[in-house]
Protein backbone atom coordinates (compact mmCIF):
# COMPACT_ATOMS: atom_id res chain seq x y z
CA UNK A 1 0.00 0.00 0.00
CA UNK A 2 1.34 3.42 -0.91
CA UNK A 3 2.04 5.69 1.98
CA UNK A 4 -0.49 8.43 2.37
CA UNK A 5 0.10 12.13 2.74
CA UNK A 6 -3.25 13.32 3.89
CA UNK A 7 -3.02 16.28 6.25
CA UNK A 8 -6.20 17.85 4.90
CA UNK A 9 -8.41 14.90 5.57
CA UNK A 10 -9.09 15.88 9.16
CA UNK A 11 -12.72 16.86 9.16
CA UNK A 12 -13.50 20.39 10.30
CA UNK A 13 -15.59 20.88 13.38
CA UNK A 14 -19.07 22.27 13.40
CA UNK A 15 -17.80 25.46 15.03
CA UNK A 16 -15.29 25.85 12.20
CA UNK A 17 -17.98 25.68 9.58
CA UNK A 18 -20.20 28.15 11.36
CA UNK A 19 -17.31 30.49 12.20
CA UNK A 20 -16.03 30.36 8.64
CA UNK A 21 -19.42 31.23 7.25
CA UNK A 22 -19.84 34.10 9.72
CA UNK A 23 -16.37 35.41 8.92
CA UNK A 24 -17.42 35.77 5.31
CA UNK A 25 -20.56 37.50 6.43
CA UNK A 26 -22.77 34.61 5.54
CA UNK A 27 -25.30 33.98 8.22
CA UNK A 28 -27.44 32.06 5.80
CA UNK A 29 -28.82 35.13 4.08
CA UNK A 30 -25.81 35.87 1.86
CA UNK A 31 -25.42 34.71 -1.67
CA UNK A 32 -22.27 32.59 -1.34
CA UNK A 33 -22.19 29.72 1.09
CA UNK A 34 -24.69 28.85 3.75
CA UNK A 35 -24.68 26.55 6.74
CA UNK A 36 -27.27 23.82 6.78
CA UNK A 37 -28.13 21.57 9.67
CA UNK A 38 -29.16 18.01 8.80
CA UNK A 39 -30.48 15.79 11.53
CA UNK A 40 -30.36 14.42 14.20
CA UNK A 41 -34.01 13.79 13.36
CA UNK A 42 -33.82 13.18 9.65
CA UNK A 43 -35.24 10.14 7.86
CA UNK A 44 -32.20 9.45 5.72
CA UNK A 45 -29.57 9.63 8.45
CA UNK A 46 -30.55 6.14 9.62
CA UNK A 47 -30.83 7.08 13.24
CA UNK A 48 -29.65 10.13 15.10
CA UNK A 49 -26.73 11.35 13.05
CA UNK A 50 -26.37 15.11 12.86
CA UNK A 51 -24.47 16.68 10.01
CA UNK A 52 -23.57 20.31 9.68
CA UNK A 53 -23.00 21.21 6.07
CA UNK A 54 -21.58 24.28 4.44
CA UNK A 55 -23.07 24.51 0.99
CA UNK A 56 -22.43 26.73 -1.99
CA UNK A 57 -25.67 26.55 -3.90
CA UNK A 58 -26.17 22.81 -4.05
CA UNK A 59 -22.50 21.85 -3.65
CA UNK A 60 -20.93 20.66 -0.42
CA UNK A 61 -18.04 22.88 0.70
CA UNK A 62 -17.52 21.32 4.13
CA UNK A 63 -19.23 18.74 6.24
CA UNK A 64 -18.92 17.80 9.90
CA UNK A 65 -20.66 14.92 11.64
CA UNK A 66 -21.88 15.38 15.19
CA UNK A 67 -22.44 12.13 17.08
CA UNK A 68 -23.19 10.99 20.60
CA UNK A 69 -26.97 11.36 20.63
CA UNK A 70 -27.35 7.62 21.27
CA UNK A 71 -24.50 7.27 23.76
CA UNK A 72 -25.64 4.97 26.55
CA UNK A 73 -22.31 4.10 28.14
CA UNK A 74 -22.41 0.41 27.28
CA UNK A 75 -18.65 0.10 27.84
CA UNK A 76 -19.09 1.40 31.39
CA UNK A 77 -22.07 -0.87 32.02
CA UNK A 78 -20.05 -3.92 30.94
CA UNK A 79 -17.59 -3.28 33.77
CA UNK A 80 -20.35 -3.76 36.34
CA UNK A 81 -21.64 -7.06 34.94
CA UNK A 82 -20.43 -10.64 35.07
CA UNK A 83 -18.84 -11.87 31.86
CA UNK A 84 -21.93 -13.82 30.82
CA UNK A 85 -24.21 -10.85 31.52
CA UNK A 86 -22.44 -8.76 28.91
CA UNK A 87 -23.74 -10.88 26.00
CA UNK A 88 -27.22 -9.23 25.93
CA UNK A 89 -25.58 -5.80 26.00
CA UNK A 90 -23.57 -6.58 22.89
CA UNK A 91 -26.81 -7.25 20.96
CA UNK A 92 -27.77 -3.65 21.43
CA UNK A 93 -24.60 -2.12 20.07
CA UNK A 94 -25.20 -2.94 16.43
CA UNK A 95 -28.85 -3.86 16.44
CA UNK A 96 -28.81 -5.02 12.83
CA UNK A 97 -26.25 -7.76 13.45
CA UNK A 98 -26.67 -8.97 17.06
CA UNK A 99 -25.14 -12.39 16.33
CA UNK A 100 -21.95 -10.82 14.96
CA UNK A 101 -21.55 -8.81 18.15
CA UNK A 102 -22.22 -11.88 20.26
CA UNK A 103 -19.63 -13.81 18.31
CA UNK A 104 -16.93 -11.16 18.60
CA UNK A 105 -17.43 -10.82 22.36
CA UNK A 106 -17.66 -14.56 23.01
CA UNK A 107 -14.55 -15.24 20.92
CA UNK A 108 -12.65 -12.59 22.86
CA UNK A 109 -13.58 -14.04 26.25
CA UNK A 110 -12.98 -17.59 25.01
CA UNK A 111 -9.53 -16.46 23.93
CA UNK A 112 -8.90 -15.16 27.45
CA UNK A 113 -10.14 -18.45 28.91
CA UNK A 114 -8.35 -20.49 26.23
CA UNK A 115 -11.51 -22.51 25.65
CA UNK A 116 -11.98 -24.99 22.84
CA UNK A 117 -15.37 -24.71 21.13
CA UNK A 118 -16.89 -27.89 19.63
CA UNK A 119 -16.92 -27.98 15.85
CA UNK A 120 -20.68 -28.21 15.60
CA UNK A 121 -21.09 -25.02 17.61
CA UNK A 122 -18.53 -23.27 15.41
CA UNK A 123 -20.40 -24.23 12.25
CA UNK A 124 -23.71 -23.11 13.71
CA UNK A 125 -22.09 -19.83 14.69
CA UNK A 126 -20.83 -19.31 11.15
CA UNK A 127 -24.24 -20.20 9.71
CA UNK A 128 -26.00 -17.74 11.99
CA UNK A 129 -23.46 -15.03 11.30
CA UNK A 130 -23.96 -15.34 7.58
CA UNK A 131 -27.74 -15.27 7.97
CA UNK A 132 -27.25 -12.13 10.04
CA UNK A 133 -25.11 -10.66 7.29
CA UNK A 134 -27.84 -11.29 4.70
CA UNK A 135 -30.42 -9.83 7.06
CA UNK A 136 -28.32 -6.73 7.69
CA UNK A 137 -27.61 -6.22 3.99
CA UNK A 138 -31.34 -6.52 3.31
CA UNK A 139 -32.02 -3.68 5.73
CA UNK A 140 -29.26 -1.69 4.06
CA UNK A 141 -30.60 -2.35 0.55
CA UNK A 142 -34.19 -1.55 1.50
CA UNK A 143 -33.40 1.71 3.27
CA UNK A 144 -30.70 2.79 0.82
CA UNK A 145 -33.05 2.28 -2.12
CA UNK A 146 -35.82 4.07 -0.26
CA UNK A 147 -33.53 7.07 0.34
CA UNK A 148 -32.82 7.22 -3.38
CA UNK A 149 -36.52 6.96 -4.18
CA UNK A 150 -37.04 3.29 -5.05
CA UNK A 151 -39.74 2.67 -2.48
CA UNK A 152 -40.72 -0.78 -3.72
CA UNK A 153 -37.37 -2.27 -2.76
CA UNK A 154 -38.05 -1.59 0.88
CA UNK A 155 -41.05 -3.92 0.89
CA UNK A 156 -39.29 -6.66 -1.05
CA UNK A 157 -36.27 -6.58 1.27
CA UNK A 158 -38.42 -6.63 4.37
CA UNK A 159 -40.23 -9.70 3.02
CA UNK A 160 -37.03 -11.79 2.95
CA UNK A 161 -35.73 -10.25 6.15
CA UNK A 162 -38.90 -11.47 7.83
CA UNK A 163 -38.00 -15.05 6.86
CA UNK A 164 -34.63 -14.72 8.61
CA UNK A 165 -36.19 -13.09 11.66
CA UNK A 166 -38.64 -16.00 11.90
CA UNK A 167 -35.69 -18.39 11.91
CA UNK A 168 -34.09 -16.35 14.70
CA UNK A 169 -37.33 -16.31 16.64
CA UNK A 170 -37.73 -20.07 16.43
CA UNK A 171 -34.10 -20.44 17.47
CA UNK A 172 -33.83 -18.04 20.38
CA UNK A 173 -37.33 -16.75 21.15
CA UNK A 174 -36.38 -13.26 19.96
CA UNK A 175 -36.50 -11.68 16.55
CA UNK A 176 -33.78 -9.07 16.89
CA UNK A 177 -32.06 -9.10 20.27
CA UNK A 178 -31.32 -12.79 20.09
CA UNK A 179 -28.56 -13.16 22.74
CA UNK A 180 -28.21 -16.70 21.47
CA UNK A 181 -24.47 -17.11 21.83
CA UNK A 182 -22.87 -18.04 25.12
CA UNK A 183 -19.31 -17.94 26.31
CA UNK A 184 -18.30 -21.49 25.48
CA UNK A 185 -20.88 -22.21 22.78
CA UNK A 186 -24.56 -21.62 22.15
CA UNK A 187 -27.56 -21.23 24.43
CA UNK A 188 -29.83 -23.97 23.13
CA UNK A 189 -29.99 -26.81 20.68
CA UNK A 190 -31.62 -25.51 17.44
CA UNK A 191 -35.33 -26.45 17.22
CA UNK A 192 -36.64 -29.39 15.16
CA UNK A 193 -37.68 -27.41 12.11
CA UNK A 194 -34.52 -25.27 12.06
CA UNK A 195 -32.72 -27.05 9.21
CA UNK A 196 -35.84 -27.19 7.06
CA UNK A 197 -36.54 -23.49 7.64
CA UNK A 198 -33.00 -22.44 6.77
CA UNK A 199 -32.89 -24.72 3.73
CA UNK A 200 -36.15 -23.28 2.41
CA UNK A 201 -34.75 -19.80 2.80
CA UNK A 202 -31.45 -20.65 1.11
CA UNK A 203 -33.35 -22.19 -1.80
CA UNK A 204 -35.35 -19.07 -2.53
CA UNK A 205 -32.75 -16.40 -1.70
CA UNK A 206 -30.60 -16.42 -4.90
CA UNK A 207 -33.77 -15.92 -6.96
CA UNK A 208 -34.79 -13.03 -4.75
CA UNK A 209 -31.42 -11.34 -5.20
CA UNK A 210 -31.95 -11.68 -8.97
CA UNK A 211 -35.28 -9.99 -8.44
CA UNK A 212 -33.66 -7.05 -6.60
CA UNK A 213 -31.13 -6.73 -9.37
CA UNK A 214 -33.81 -6.76 -12.04
CA UNK A 215 -35.43 -3.81 -10.27
CA UNK A 216 -32.28 -1.80 -9.64
CA UNK A 217 -29.16 -2.78 -11.54
CA UNK A 218 -30.28 -1.73 -15.01
CA UNK A 219 -32.52 1.08 -13.82
CA UNK A 220 -31.29 4.37 -15.38
CA UNK A 221 -32.42 6.47 -12.39
CA UNK A 222 -30.65 4.14 -9.97
CA UNK A 223 -27.48 4.15 -12.07
CA UNK A 224 -27.57 7.91 -12.46
CA UNK A 225 -27.85 8.44 -8.72
CA UNK A 226 -25.11 5.95 -7.82
CA UNK A 227 -22.43 5.88 -10.49
CA UNK A 228 -19.47 8.15 -9.88
CA UNK A 229 -20.94 9.46 -6.62
CA UNK A 230 -19.01 9.44 -3.33
CA UNK A 231 -15.65 8.37 -4.70
CA UNK A 232 -13.12 7.11 -2.17
CA UNK A 233 -9.63 6.16 -3.29
CA UNK A 234 -7.97 3.07 -1.79
CA UNK A 235 -5.29 5.24 -0.15
CA UNK A 236 -7.90 7.46 1.49
CA UNK A 237 -9.93 4.43 2.57
CA UNK A 238 -6.95 2.90 4.38
CA UNK A 239 -5.82 6.22 5.85
CA UNK A 240 -9.29 6.99 7.19
CA UNK A 241 -9.83 3.58 8.78
CA UNK A 242 -12.58 2.38 6.44
CA UNK A 243 -13.30 -1.34 6.65
CA UNK A 244 -15.73 -3.87 5.22
CA UNK A 245 -17.68 -3.43 1.99
CA UNK A 246 -16.70 0.25 1.50
CA UNK A 247 -13.01 -0.74 1.74
CA UNK A 248 -13.43 -3.59 -0.74
CA UNK A 249 -15.44 -1.33 -3.04
CA UNK A 250 -12.40 0.95 -3.09
CA UNK A 251 -10.22 -1.87 -4.34
CA UNK A 252 -8.53 -3.09 -1.17
CA UNK A 253 -8.83 -6.87 -1.07
CA UNK A 254 -9.19 -7.48 2.65
CA UNK A 255 -11.72 -9.64 4.47
CA UNK A 256 -11.08 -10.87 8.00
CA UNK A 257 -13.09 -14.03 7.36
CA UNK A 258 -10.58 -15.09 4.75
CA UNK A 259 -7.39 -13.34 5.85
CA UNK A 260 -7.50 -13.82 9.62
CA UNK A 261 -10.07 -16.62 9.99
CA UNK A 262 -11.96 -17.13 13.24
CA UNK A 263 -14.62 -19.60 14.39
CA UNK A 264 -13.70 -22.08 11.67
CA UNK A 265 -14.11 -19.80 8.62
CA UNK A 266 -11.02 -21.41 7.12
CA UNK A 267 -13.12 -24.51 6.37
CA UNK A 268 -15.46 -22.60 4.04
CA UNK A 269 -14.90 -21.75 0.41
CA UNK A 270 -16.10 -18.35 -0.71
CA UNK A 271 -15.01 -15.44 -2.85
CA UNK A 272 -14.43 -11.94 -1.56
CA UNK A 273 -16.02 -9.48 -3.98
CA UNK A 274 -13.81 -6.49 -4.73
CA UNK A 275 -14.44 -3.52 -6.98
CA UNK A 276 -12.00 -0.81 -8.01
CA UNK A 277 -14.59 1.87 -8.78
CA UNK A 278 -14.75 3.24 -5.23
CA UNK A 279 -18.13 4.91 -5.67
CA UNK A 280 -21.60 4.30 -4.27
CA UNK A 281 -22.34 1.98 -7.18
CA UNK A 282 -19.31 -0.17 -6.30
CA UNK A 283 -20.51 -0.47 -2.70
CA UNK A 284 -23.91 -1.54 -4.00
CA UNK A 285 -22.49 -4.26 -6.26
CA UNK A 286 -20.02 -5.47 -3.63
CA UNK A 287 -22.78 -5.90 -1.05
CA UNK A 288 -25.09 -7.70 -3.46
CA UNK A 289 -22.30 -10.11 -4.37
CA UNK A 290 -21.55 -10.56 -0.68
CA UNK A 291 -25.13 -11.65 -0.11
CA UNK A 292 -24.72 -14.31 -2.78
CA UNK A 293 -21.46 -15.48 -1.18
CA UNK A 294 -23.16 -15.59 2.22
CA UNK A 295 -25.83 -17.88 0.79
CA UNK A 296 -23.03 -20.17 -0.43
CA UNK A 297 -21.37 -20.20 3.00
CA UNK A 298 -24.71 -20.97 4.64
CA UNK A 299 -25.24 -23.85 2.25
CA UNK A 300 -21.81 -25.29 3.06
CA UNK A 301 -22.56 -24.95 6.76
CA UNK A 302 -25.88 -26.74 6.26
CA UNK A 303 -24.11 -29.60 4.48
CA UNK A 304 -21.58 -29.86 7.30
CA UNK A 305 -24.36 -29.87 9.88
CA UNK A 306 -26.19 -32.61 7.96
CA UNK A 307 -23.16 -34.84 8.47
CA UNK A 308 -23.23 -34.21 12.23
CA UNK A 309 -26.90 -34.08 13.22
CA UNK A 310 -26.08 -34.26 16.91
CA UNK A 311 -23.14 -33.30 19.04
CA UNK A 312 -22.15 -30.86 21.69
CA UNK A 313 -22.92 -27.20 21.16
CA UNK A 314 -21.07 -26.04 24.26
CA UNK A 315 -17.51 -26.51 25.42
CA UNK A 316 -16.71 -29.10 28.03
CA UNK A 317 -16.10 -26.60 30.81
CA UNK A 318 -18.52 -27.17 33.71
CA UNK A 319 -17.24 -24.15 35.65
CA UNK A 320 -18.00 -21.77 32.77
CA UNK A 321 -20.92 -23.20 30.81
CA UNK A 322 -24.25 -23.67 32.58
CA UNK A 323 -25.08 -27.38 33.01
CA UNK A 324 -27.82 -29.21 31.21
CA UNK A 325 -31.17 -28.61 32.89
CA UNK A 326 -31.84 -32.31 33.47
CA UNK A 327 -28.40 -32.86 35.00
CA UNK A 328 -28.85 -29.87 37.23
CA UNK A 329 -31.95 -31.43 38.74
CA UNK A 330 -30.42 -34.85 39.30
CA UNK A 331 -26.73 -34.31 39.98
CA UNK A 332 -25.38 -32.51 43.00
CA UNK A 333 -22.23 -31.33 41.27
CA UNK A 334 -24.10 -29.79 38.34
CA UNK A 335 -26.36 -28.00 40.80
CA UNK A 336 -23.33 -26.53 42.56
CA UNK A 337 -21.80 -25.39 39.28
CA UNK A 338 -25.08 -23.83 38.21
CA UNK A 339 -25.45 -22.02 41.52
CA UNK A 340 -21.90 -20.72 41.44
CA UNK A 341 -22.02 -19.51 37.85
CA UNK A 342 -25.32 -17.71 38.36
CA UNK A 343 -24.45 -16.09 41.70
CA UNK A 344 -20.71 -15.47 41.45
CA UNK A 345 -19.93 -15.72 37.76
CA UNK A 346 -16.66 -17.32 36.75
CA UNK A 347 -13.18 -15.92 37.12
CA UNK A 348 -11.30 -15.20 33.92
CA UNK A 349 -7.49 -15.30 34.04
CA UNK A 350 -5.85 -11.89 33.83
CA UNK A 351 -4.83 -10.68 30.41
CA UNK A 352 -5.94 -8.61 27.45
CA UNK A 353 -7.17 -9.69 24.04
CA UNK A 354 -8.40 -8.01 20.87
CA UNK A 355 -10.70 -10.09 18.73
CA UNK A 356 -11.88 -8.74 15.40
CA UNK A 357 -14.59 -10.22 13.20
CA UNK A 358 -15.97 -9.16 9.85
CA UNK A 359 -19.35 -7.66 10.59
CA UNK A 360 -21.70 -6.65 7.73
CA UNK A 361 -20.27 -3.15 8.08
CA UNK A 362 -16.61 -3.98 8.46
CA UNK A 363 -14.17 -4.79 11.18
CA UNK A 364 -15.82 -5.18 14.54
CA UNK A 365 -13.22 -5.64 17.26
CA UNK A 366 -13.66 -6.37 20.94
CA UNK A 367 -10.84 -5.43 23.28
CA UNK A 368 -11.41 -7.20 26.61
CA UNK A 369 -9.14 -6.71 29.60
CA UNK A 370 -9.41 -9.05 32.57
CA UNK A 371 -7.95 -8.53 36.01
CA UNK A 372 -8.63 -12.11 37.09
CA UNK A 373 -12.09 -11.54 38.58
CA UNK A 374 -15.58 -12.50 37.37
CA UNK A 375 -16.29 -9.08 35.88
CA UNK A 376 -14.51 -7.66 32.84
CA UNK A 377 -12.11 -4.90 33.85
CA UNK A 378 -12.56 -3.13 30.54
CA UNK A 379 -14.54 -3.89 27.39
CA UNK A 380 -13.98 -1.71 24.37
CA UNK A 381 -15.66 -2.09 21.00
CA UNK A 382 -13.98 -1.03 17.82
CA UNK A 383 -16.92 -0.40 15.55
CA UNK A 384 -16.80 -0.14 11.79
CA UNK A 385 -19.26 2.72 11.22
CA UNK A 386 -17.42 4.94 13.70
CA UNK A 387 -14.30 4.89 11.55
CA UNK A 388 -16.15 4.95 8.23
CA UNK A 389 -17.95 8.11 9.32
CA UNK A 390 -14.59 9.91 9.24
CA UNK A 391 -14.46 9.33 5.50
CA UNK A 392 -17.84 10.94 4.91
CA UNK A 393 -16.46 14.38 4.19
CA UNK A 394 -13.89 13.06 1.73
CA UNK A 395 -16.65 11.25 -0.13
CA UNK A 396 -19.12 14.15 -0.17
CA UNK A 397 -16.91 17.19 -0.76
CA UNK A 398 -17.64 18.96 -4.02
CA UNK A 399 -20.70 16.83 -4.70
CA UNK A 400 -24.34 17.81 -4.57
CA UNK A 401 -26.41 17.97 -1.43
CA UNK A 402 -28.66 15.16 -2.65
CA UNK A 403 -25.62 12.90 -2.98
CA UNK A 404 -24.99 13.09 0.77
CA UNK A 405 -28.07 10.96 1.26
CA UNK A 406 -26.79 8.39 -1.24
CA UNK A 407 -23.35 8.33 0.41
CA UNK A 408 -24.72 7.91 3.94
CA UNK A 409 -26.82 5.02 2.66
CA UNK A 410 -23.83 3.48 0.92
CA UNK A 411 -21.68 3.31 4.04
CA UNK A 412 -24.54 1.50 5.81
CA UNK A 413 -24.39 3.50 8.98
CA UNK A 414 -25.74 2.22 12.30
CA UNK A 415 -25.75 4.85 15.01
CA UNK A 416 -26.10 2.36 17.83
CA UNK A 417 -22.61 1.08 17.23
CA UNK A 418 -21.11 4.52 16.66
CA UNK A 419 -22.38 6.01 19.89
CA UNK A 420 -22.49 2.86 22.05
Amino acid at each position, binding site marked *: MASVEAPNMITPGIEDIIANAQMHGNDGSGDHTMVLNMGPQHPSTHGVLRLVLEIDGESIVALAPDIGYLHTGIEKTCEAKFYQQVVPLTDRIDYLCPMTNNLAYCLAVEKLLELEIPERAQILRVLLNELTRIQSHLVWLGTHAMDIGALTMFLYCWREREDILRIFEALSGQRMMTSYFRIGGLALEPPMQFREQVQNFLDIMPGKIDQYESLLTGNPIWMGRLKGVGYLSPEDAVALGVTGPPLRASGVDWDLRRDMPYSGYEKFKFDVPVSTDGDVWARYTVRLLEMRESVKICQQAMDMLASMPSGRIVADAPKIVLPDREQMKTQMESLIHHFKIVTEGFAVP*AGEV*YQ*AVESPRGEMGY*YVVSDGTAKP*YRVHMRNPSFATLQALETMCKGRLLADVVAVIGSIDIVLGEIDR
Partner: protein
Amino acid sequence: MGGTPNPLPVPNPGPTAASPGPHPGPEPGPSALSEHVNSGPLFGKEAVFEAMAHNAAVKALSGLATDAKFDRKELTITVAREKIIVACEAVKAAGYNFFEDVTAVDWYPQEPRFQLSYHILSHKLKQRVRIAVRLDSAGLTIDSITSVWPSANFYEREVFDLFGIHFAGHPRLTRIMMPENWEGHPLRKDYPVEGYR
Protein backbone atom coordinates in the same frame (compact mmCIF):
# COMPACT_ATOMS: atom_id res chain seq x y z
CA MET B 1 -26.19 -4.59 39.84
CA GLY B 2 -28.65 -1.77 40.55
CA GLY B 3 -27.69 0.77 43.14
CA THR B 4 -24.43 -0.60 44.44
CA PRO B 5 -21.59 1.83 43.97
CA ASN B 6 -18.94 0.96 41.47
CA PRO B 7 -16.60 -1.36 43.35
CA LEU B 8 -13.00 -0.34 43.47
CA PRO B 9 -10.80 -2.51 41.35
CA VAL B 10 -9.37 -5.43 43.21
CA PRO B 11 -5.75 -4.93 44.12
CA ASN B 12 -4.68 -7.43 41.53
CA PRO B 13 -1.46 -6.39 39.86
CA GLY B 14 -3.08 -6.84 36.44
CA PRO B 15 -1.55 -8.17 33.31
CA THR B 16 0.56 -5.19 32.46
CA ALA B 17 2.20 -4.67 35.83
CA ALA B 18 5.83 -5.45 36.29
CA SER B 19 5.16 -8.93 37.64
CA PRO B 20 4.86 -11.60 34.97
CA GLY B 21 1.16 -12.15 35.69
CA PRO B 22 -0.61 -15.31 36.70
CA HIS B 23 0.23 -17.14 33.50
CA PRO B 24 3.97 -17.45 33.27
CA GLY B 25 4.58 -19.47 30.18
CA PRO B 26 7.13 -22.17 29.76
CA GLU B 27 10.67 -20.93 29.72
CA PRO B 28 11.54 -20.04 26.15
CA GLY B 29 13.85 -22.74 24.98
CA PRO B 30 16.19 -22.45 22.06
CA SER B 31 14.09 -24.65 19.78
CA ALA B 32 10.54 -24.47 18.42
CA LEU B 33 10.35 -20.71 18.82
CA SER B 34 11.39 -19.63 15.38
CA GLU B 35 7.75 -19.96 14.39
CA HIS B 36 6.46 -17.66 17.08
CA VAL B 37 2.81 -18.51 16.52
CA ASN B 38 3.37 -21.97 17.95
CA SER B 39 5.14 -20.86 21.09
CA GLY B 40 3.54 -20.42 24.47
CA PRO B 41 3.09 -17.09 26.19
CA LEU B 42 6.19 -14.98 26.62
CA PHE B 43 6.62 -12.20 29.12
CA GLY B 44 9.33 -9.59 29.25
CA LYS B 45 11.22 -7.75 26.57
CA GLU B 46 14.17 -10.15 26.39
CA ALA B 47 12.03 -13.28 26.10
CA VAL B 48 9.86 -11.85 23.33
CA PHE B 49 12.67 -10.24 21.39
CA GLU B 50 14.76 -13.39 21.48
CA ALA B 51 11.97 -15.75 20.48
CA MET B 52 10.32 -13.53 17.89
CA ALA B 53 13.32 -11.83 16.35
CA HIS B 54 11.91 -12.32 12.84
CA ASN B 55 8.62 -10.59 13.55
CA ALA B 56 8.34 -7.34 11.59
CA ALA B 57 6.99 -5.33 14.50
CA VAL B 58 9.65 -6.67 16.87
CA LYS B 59 12.34 -5.68 14.39
CA ALA B 60 10.86 -2.23 13.89
CA LEU B 61 10.51 -1.50 17.60
CA SER B 62 13.67 -3.15 18.90
CA GLY B 63 15.24 0.17 19.87
CA LEU B 64 12.07 1.67 21.34
CA ALA B 65 10.46 -1.05 23.42
CA THR B 66 10.53 -0.83 27.18
CA ASP B 67 8.53 -4.01 27.73
CA ALA B 68 6.90 -6.69 25.61
CA LYS B 69 4.74 -9.73 25.92
CA PHE B 70 3.30 -12.43 23.71
CA ASP B 71 0.17 -13.71 25.38
CA ARG B 72 -2.87 -15.51 23.91
CA LYS B 73 -1.10 -15.31 20.56
CA GLU B 74 -1.13 -11.52 20.67
CA LEU B 75 1.96 -9.40 20.61
CA THR B 76 2.09 -6.35 22.87
CA ILE B 77 5.02 -3.97 22.81
CA THR B 78 5.22 -1.20 25.37
CA VAL B 79 6.95 2.03 24.42
CA ALA B 80 7.66 5.22 26.30
CA ARG B 81 5.16 8.04 26.12
CA GLU B 82 7.47 10.40 24.19
CA LYS B 83 8.17 7.76 21.57
CA ILE B 84 4.64 7.05 20.38
CA ILE B 85 4.89 8.90 17.04
CA VAL B 86 8.31 7.41 16.33
CA ALA B 87 6.99 3.95 17.19
CA CYS B 88 3.94 4.36 14.96
CA GLU B 89 6.06 5.55 12.06
CA ALA B 90 8.41 2.62 12.59
CA VAL B 91 5.67 -0.02 12.47
CA LYS B 92 4.05 1.75 9.54
CA ALA B 93 7.33 1.55 7.64
CA ALA B 94 7.54 -2.12 8.57
CA GLY B 95 4.27 -2.85 6.78
CA TYR B 96 1.65 -2.29 9.47
CA ASN B 97 -0.41 -0.03 7.27
CA PHE B 98 -3.81 0.03 8.94
CA PHE B 99 -4.70 1.75 12.20
CA GLU B 100 -7.54 -0.12 13.87
CA ASP B 101 -8.15 1.22 17.30
CA VAL B 102 -6.86 3.15 20.24
CA THR B 103 -8.38 3.00 23.66
CA ALA B 104 -7.37 3.33 27.29
CA VAL B 105 -7.54 1.22 30.42
CA ASP B 106 -7.69 2.85 33.84
CA TRP B 107 -5.69 0.90 36.45
CA TYR B 108 -6.74 3.20 39.30
CA PRO B 109 -5.40 3.39 42.00
CA GLN B 110 -2.16 1.98 40.64
CA GLU B 111 0.52 4.12 39.08
CA PRO B 112 1.16 4.53 36.20
CA ARG B 113 -2.57 4.84 36.13
CA PHE B 114 -3.55 4.70 32.46
CA GLN B 115 -2.63 2.31 29.72
CA LEU B 116 -3.21 3.29 26.10
CA SER B 117 -3.54 0.39 23.67
CA TYR B 118 -3.02 1.05 19.97
CA HIS B 119 -4.01 -1.78 17.66
CA ILE B 120 -2.25 -1.72 14.32
CA LEU B 121 -2.90 -4.20 11.52
CA SER B 122 -0.84 -5.19 8.53
CA HIS B 123 -2.83 -6.12 5.44
CA LYS B 124 0.24 -7.60 3.84
CA LEU B 125 1.58 -9.64 6.77
CA LYS B 126 -1.91 -10.48 8.08
CA GLN B 127 -0.69 -9.67 11.56
CA ARG B 128 -1.64 -7.32 14.31
CA VAL B 129 0.50 -5.57 16.90
CA ARG B 130 -0.60 -3.82 20.04
CA ILE B 131 1.49 -0.84 21.08
CA ALA B 132 0.94 -0.04 24.73
CA VAL B 133 1.86 3.16 26.55
CA ARG B 134 1.63 3.72 30.30
CA LEU B 135 0.70 7.17 31.55
CA ASP B 136 1.12 8.59 35.06
CA SER B 137 -1.86 10.48 36.39
CA ALA B 138 0.52 13.42 36.85
CA GLY B 139 1.09 13.87 33.12
CA LEU B 140 -1.98 12.93 31.12
CA THR B 141 -0.70 14.13 27.78
CA ILE B 142 0.56 12.17 24.83
CA ASP B 143 1.31 13.11 21.22
CA SER B 144 -1.50 12.61 18.77
CA ILE B 145 -0.83 10.13 15.98
CA THR B 146 -3.25 11.75 13.53
CA SER B 147 -0.22 12.88 11.52
CA VAL B 148 0.62 9.20 10.93
CA TRP B 149 -2.91 7.83 10.57
CA PRO B 150 -5.72 10.40 10.09
CA SER B 151 -8.14 7.67 11.15
CA ALA B 152 -6.98 8.06 14.77
CA ASN B 153 -8.90 11.35 14.90
CA PHE B 154 -12.24 10.15 16.29
CA TYR B 155 -10.62 7.49 18.45
CA GLU B 156 -8.38 9.98 20.22
CA ARG B 157 -11.32 12.29 20.73
CA GLU B 158 -13.21 9.42 22.31
CA VAL B 159 -10.34 8.63 24.69
CA PHE B 160 -10.09 12.32 25.58
CA ASP B 161 -13.82 12.50 26.22
CA LEU B 162 -14.20 9.36 28.30
CA PHE B 163 -10.80 9.21 30.06
CA GLY B 164 -9.55 12.80 30.05
CA ILE B 165 -6.24 12.05 28.35
CA HIS B 166 -4.95 14.91 26.20
CA PHE B 167 -3.49 14.37 22.77
CA ALA B 168 -1.00 17.07 21.86
CA GLY B 169 -1.22 18.12 18.23
CA HIS B 170 -4.69 16.74 17.66
CA PRO B 171 -6.55 18.98 15.17
CA ARG B 172 -9.75 19.12 17.22
CA LEU B 173 -9.70 17.71 20.70
CA THR B 174 -13.31 18.16 21.79
CA ARG B 175 -15.79 15.83 23.40
CA ILE B 176 -17.38 13.42 20.97
CA MET B 177 -19.81 11.23 22.94
CA MET B 178 -20.75 13.35 25.93
CA PRO B 179 -22.27 16.85 25.76
CA GLU B 180 -19.79 19.73 25.53
CA ASN B 181 -20.56 20.93 29.06
CA TRP B 182 -20.29 17.54 30.73
CA GLU B 183 -18.17 17.30 33.86
CA GLY B 184 -15.92 14.34 34.47
CA HIS B 185 -14.74 11.47 32.34
CA PRO B 186 -17.16 8.54 32.61
CA LEU B 187 -14.87 5.60 31.84
CA ARG B 188 -12.48 6.39 34.67
CA LYS B 189 -12.69 3.88 37.47
CA ASP B 190 -13.34 6.55 40.09
CA TYR B 191 -16.45 7.65 38.17
CA PRO B 192 -19.44 5.75 39.56
CA VAL B 193 -21.55 3.59 37.27
CA GLU B 194 -24.76 5.45 38.01
CA GLY B 195 -23.18 8.92 37.68
CA TYR B 196 -22.58 11.59 40.28
CA ARG B 197 -25.51 12.46 42.50
